[in-house]
């Protein structure tokens, strides 16, 4: 008895020693760094703190989704950068998903040519560093576009020029009613779908949920246009002469070339990885599943919708989440072509002006950590929802 007790304690002690050493080592490194930082900041006459966020930033930002000018605070500048990061990530994720799914499905096409073209698309764009692709689009391809006076016109509605892409501006009246109607439509669709699921599981009835959902989504907002005074007009960009040689467009919205280059490169690069995930997911559904579904009399569309896709999605989603995260993090390469994202605005300009390296870099890193963690939490939730439910 005594012997056993002794050996257990011995094991506990054996476990404790390496842990204690690691923790102590980590702590001493942190303390060493912290004291050094304190001394260094003392020498430079700055004290640690986040008060600078309320000071006037006094620098301009080329592209902003919210009101901003030099008289606003550093905190506001941070928000502008953050929103720009989110904007380019969202655009990138949207197009990368579409392109990725198309390329991934094409790689499995029984058409030899299509499969080969898709394969080479993946091989080419995956093996070139993203930063080079961004440089290529920004410094080489988009610089080859014409000047505003002979911009490439799409039906005189939008214009593609070296200075950016000018698109019509949406001018809404009673936008909030429209927004509410869209939300209401989504809620209605949710209830219809859960009712349809119940019907299917209890009575084996199939309701045309896709048709109902789509028509709700179109009809409900349409009604607000007709009866609730919602209206939408467009403000078109118009060419204007500033001086004998300088032209510009007035009105409309200008999408700056930095944003186009960044979104293009990010989505084309990430699409290759998503394509590989999609391909793996579809290949991962065993042939027997499709054959079994066919043998109980499901149609081809039903097989795809009810048997193949739910199983394929389960394989596709986790690695694709990682790709979304990577895209969001890669959007920080914006700093290389001066797209005003959070890194350029905050970790670049604001840091240069204030010299508060520790605070600003920590805030930037924490922001990315928060973005990453929130996307992964959302995706984990979605993943759990899609996972096999044993009954």
């Amino acid at each position: 008895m005594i012997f056993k007790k002794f050996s257990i304690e011995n094991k506990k002690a054996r476990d404790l020693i390496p842990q204690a050493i690691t923790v102590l080592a980590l702590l001493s490194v942190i303390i060493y760094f912290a004291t050094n930082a304190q001394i260094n900041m003392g020498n430079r006459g700055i004290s640690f703190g986040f008060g600078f966020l309320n000071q006037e930033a006094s620098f301009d930002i080329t592209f902003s989704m919210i009101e901003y000018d030099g008289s606003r605070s550093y905190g506001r500048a941070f928000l502008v950068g953050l929103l720009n990061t989110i904007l380019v990530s969202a655009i990138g994720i949207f197009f990368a998903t579409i392109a990725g799914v198309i390329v991934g499905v094409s790689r499995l096409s029984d058409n030899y040519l299509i499969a080969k073209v898709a394969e080479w698309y993946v091989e080419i764009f995956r093996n070139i560093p993203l930063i080079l692709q961004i440089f290529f689009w920004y410094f080489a391809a988009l610089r080859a576009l014409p000047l505003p006076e002979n911009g490439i016109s799409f039906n005189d509605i939008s214009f593609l020029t070296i200075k950016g892409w000018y698109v019509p501006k949406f001018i809404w009246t009673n936008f909030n009613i429209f927004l509410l109607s869209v939300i209401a439509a989504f809620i209605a669709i949710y209830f219809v779908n859960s009712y349809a699921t119940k019907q299917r599981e209890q009575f084996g009835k199939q309701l045309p949920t896709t048709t109902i959902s789509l028509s709700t989504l179109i009809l409900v907002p349409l009604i607000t246009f007709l009866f609730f005074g919602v209206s939408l007009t467009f403000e078109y960009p118009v060419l204007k002469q500033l001086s004998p040689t300088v032209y510009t467009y007035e009105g409309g919205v200008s999408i700056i070339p930095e944003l186009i280059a960044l979104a293009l490169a990010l989505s084309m690069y990430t699409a290759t990885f998503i394509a590989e995930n999609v391909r793996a997911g579809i290949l991962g559904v065993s042939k027997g599943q499709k054959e079994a579904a066919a043998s109980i009399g499901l149609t081809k569309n039903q097989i795809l919708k009810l048997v193949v896709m739910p199983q394929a999605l389960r394989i596709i989603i986790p690695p694709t989440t990682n790709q979304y995260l990577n895209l969001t993090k890669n959007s920080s390469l914006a700093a290389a072509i001066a797209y005003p994202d959070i890194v350029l605005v905050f970790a670049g300009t604001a840091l240069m002006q204030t010299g508060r390296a520790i605070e600003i870099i920590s805030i930037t890193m924490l922001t990315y950590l928060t973005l990453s963690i929130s996307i992964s939490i959302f995706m984990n939730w979605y993943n759990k929802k899609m996972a096999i439910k044993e009954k």
Partner: protein
Amino acid sequence: MNIISKPSKDNIKSYLPTGITLVFLSLLDVFVNAFFNYDLLGFFPSQISYFSPLIFGFIGLYLIRIEFSGIRSLDILNKNINSNNFNAFLTLLTLFILIKSIPPLLNWFILDANFVGNTKEDCTGDGACWVFIKVWFNRFMYGLYPDAEQWRINTAFLILFAIVGVSFFVSAKLKKYFILFLIFIYPFLGIELISGGGFGLKYVETAAWGGLSLTFIISAFAILFCFPIGVFLALGRRSSLPAIRYISIGFIELWRGVPLITVLFMSAVMFPMFLPDGTFIDKLIRVLIAITLFEAAYMAEVVRGGLQALPKGQYEAAKSLGMGYWRMNALIILPQALKLVIPGIANTLLALVKDTPLIFVVGLMELAGMIGLAKTNPKWLGMAMEGYVFAGLVFWIICYAMSRYSQNLEKKLSTER
């Protein structure tokens, strides 16, 4: 009635030649249009003329879509590119786009490009100005490294390639020593050779290093260090000791949650604040530490995947043989786990190589950075396209070769279970 009947073996004699003629005609039209700018079917009204190859080709492909025709090559063709209307349409569209895009690419890369000369003025054609690459080639490879000393970089890399090459042909026992030499002695030798300062070699500061050689140096060192760190982090994350496990998790998730560019920013502006006043760590070393730690976190997750995939029996069997933790991991677990995740390891190393251009944020210039420098040179403005296409090609070759090698390695090391 016979004319519009479905193509089958019965009417093959009339349908096949007509179909082939139509497809040939449509391809020829696009080809002539693309290469000689002449509209073969221009006698049609202009609106139809634009789509005529598509219509002709589509009808042609429909006519030759004959099941079990008895002609082997036709059956293979139909099965692969012409199995239904939709596929036929896609095939035609792909072919047309490929044919259309060949002449402009060919013109830009070769026919209208300039290869001879020494200044921008020698580039008279509309195509690429490869003179730019030729003139700057030395800088693209060696950065601002002094011309007279460049043999040192060459020698360092030649020794590396020689050792790697020889180690393929020697016996397994000798190979072990070669690898040990490569990992533990060669790095110091190579750095000494390139940086200089001793043995009568002139000292070259790291700010002058650059170009493709810097890409290789950074990649090589980061790979060398990130691998063992990653393995230890992975073991730490799976450890039964809570303190070690949580520290590993925290470390891994911290690095994986932030973009590399902010890590490099940190190494450039924040890290010096943490050191005693007056200490200076070389920029290159700081960048190397940053990249190594960053990639090690990704490596750790890959290795963890391998560790988790191993059946529990392997651990239990090793323990029942009386092996301790380290012996069990080194001899039983890791060799199997690492083999399982070769594709993941290769992907991480590829990502590492592709991430090296980011060191521009701290002012170091490898290949992409040198091109950025060259294209802003007043004498060589407007050369961005050539520069980035060249850099893209170089990186593509390196990365493609790496991914192919990893696929081979995976096949070679795979053991049936």
